[in-house]
């Protein structure tokens, strides 16, 4: 029916336009950012503080490796729709905390919930299906697979992933086409479209980080957890990567990310959680946290080279076009 087609096309146009201008400014400001900042404005700056609309709530999470207590988080909440940075010196337990929350490791004690669903004991793949996806500190590109296949793998509820349906292409071909179309859209956004047919193993470190993030987005997650997304990325790519992360917030996603570069943390995050020796030692908006004496102590204990007190605007963040 031609009328329907025309209507569908128009719909698609509108959707595309919206997507393109998702992060456009209202009075010179990102809408998603403004919402997050306003929601967090009245939250006290103290460890484990409750948030007005938490998407993730963790309680009494303890993980020991032999005698070492790697994670001991009494309480932590992540505000829905915000970008929250998880910072702390090396060995503070950030990656382990990520692993616990996403089901890649099991805590000795504690419980946590996502979107109101208890996650304790849930397998990693189930956590991902519930809408909480993560990337890894050491990038996991699937080297001997093409970029487009990496992307397609990220899509949810694929009919052709069932064994018996797999042998009958008629069952999954249509869905496959729409998955590829979606993948192509994301690849273009992440400037990887020219690499579509290349093996993922042939990409540079930074491109792999981008691919991993784009792949995670194929499942339309509610929350994205990025473990050091900027590490090893060419400075020329950092800006666009930051732009992509800000974009996620504008699209209504929640982002939790681990980052060492304080300029990056300051420029994109609405809230910062500081970990030290497994515990949450401080929370608050970036500037407040960075002048917190407990934080400076934690860093100077391990990181003499990091000039945290340097609050000068050394990095001016430019929005992506």
């Amino acid at each position, binding site marked *: 029916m031609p009328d329907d087609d025309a209507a569908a096309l128009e719909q698609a146009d509108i959707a595309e336009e919206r997507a393109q201008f998702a992060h456009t400014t209202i009075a010179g400001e990102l809408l998603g950012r403004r919402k997050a900042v306003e929601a967090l404005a009245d939250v006290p700056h103290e460890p484990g503080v409750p948030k007005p609309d938490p998407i993730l709530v963790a309680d009494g999470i303890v993980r020991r490796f032999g005698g070492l207590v790697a994670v001991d988080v009494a309480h932590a909440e992540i505000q829905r729709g915000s970008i929250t940075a998880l910072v702390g010196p090396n060995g503070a337990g950030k990656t382990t905390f990520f692993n616990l929350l996403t089901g890649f490791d099991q805590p000795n004690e504690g419980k946590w919930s996502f979107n109101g669903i208890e996650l304790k004991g849930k397998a990693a793949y189930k956590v991902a299906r519930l809408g909480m996806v993560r990337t890894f500190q050491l990038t996991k590109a699937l080297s001997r697979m093409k970029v487009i296949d990496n992307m397609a793998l990220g899509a949810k509820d694929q009919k052709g992933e069932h*064994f018996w349906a797999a042998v009958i292409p008629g069952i999954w071909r249509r869905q496959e086409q729409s998955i590829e179309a979606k993948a192509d859209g994301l690849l273009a956004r992440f400037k990887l479209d020219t690499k579509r047919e290349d*093996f993922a*193993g042939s990409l540079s470190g930074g491109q792999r980080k981008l691919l991993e993030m784009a792949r995670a987005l194929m499942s339309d997650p509610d929350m994205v957890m990025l473990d050091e997304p900027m590490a090893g990325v060419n400075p020329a790519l950092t800006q666009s990567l930051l732009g992509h992360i800000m974009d996620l917030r504008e699209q209504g996603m929640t982002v939790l990310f681990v980052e060492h570069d304080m300029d990056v943390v300051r420029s994109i995050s609405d809230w910062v959680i500081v970990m030290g020796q497994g515990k949450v030692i401080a929370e608050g908006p970036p500037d407040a946290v960075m002048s917190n004496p407990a934080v400076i102590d934690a860093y100077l204990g391990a990181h003499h080279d990091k000039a945290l007190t340097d609050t000068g605007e050394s990095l001016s963040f430019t929005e992506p076009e």
Partner: protein
Amino acid sequence: MDWGNILGQSITQGLGVLAVIYALAAIGLNVHFGYTGLLNFGQAGFLAVAAYGLAVTIVVLELPLFVGVVIGLLAAVALALLLGIPTLRLRADYLAIVTIAAAEIIRLLVRSVTLRDIFGGSDGINAFANEFFSYSPFSAGLELGPVRLSQNDLWVVVVGWTLVALSCLLVWLLMRSPWGRVIKAIREDEDAVRSLGKNVYFYKMQALIIGGVLGSLGGFIFAVGFQSVQPDSYATDLTFFAYAVLILGGAGRVMGPVLGAVVFWFLLVFIDGTLAQLVQNGTITFIRTDQVGQVRYWILGLSLMLLMIYRPQGILGDKKELALDAR
């Protein structure tokens, strides 16, 4: 030198019953190792349970052939579950250890004196393939130039290569599907696949079962092709030859195991025939005729080593792809 005879025998073996058996065993291993990255060192066990399932059903239970086939297939599925349930959640090397041990346990079990009434001890079970040959449409053997096949072998080979073709078709269909994409991704990095919401354990179990069942088809052909099942045919060297076949042809390629099996058996018989004639006509004096059987394996082993050095991806593999593995 009677090159015609040597070539004829080599081609006959390259297309013969043994090539079929190893092709099927290696197609199964290809699903396990080539596509999913599972280290199954007990493929011989899958062939054994199928062959014994068939023979015991016909001889001991006195039931028809097709029941034997069904029982053999069920036994292969059961073996996969038995091996996979405890090990597939663990690191890859656990599967390797458990499978190699399980295959040996199966061989020693069917060989045992206690179970002699069922499995026939070290003599195995013989002469149970009459029904199979009664379905043969051939009334004579095949003589095509130097290639010679007896009436019975011809039927076995036709059925065998049909199974090989169907197995390849199945693997091809599976590996081009989204299911195959998940399987190949598991080979690359399990945790990445988990992080994308796929039940990796379940997929690995499916792959273990499919590869085991494909391998078990080789067990059926082994049983009817020789009209006999014997425990020591299913020792670990069967598994390692199947790996040699797979790597020779190219792991992770649909036709790799088939080409590998043909080339492997062609070469083995060709080396054997050539050496035997050279010894007989006095050109080679430092080995005796009865040593040829051993020496051909040395030469084949050496050739495989050279292949690994100069063409590690196998005949059909893609070197570029292999190089990526290093990251």
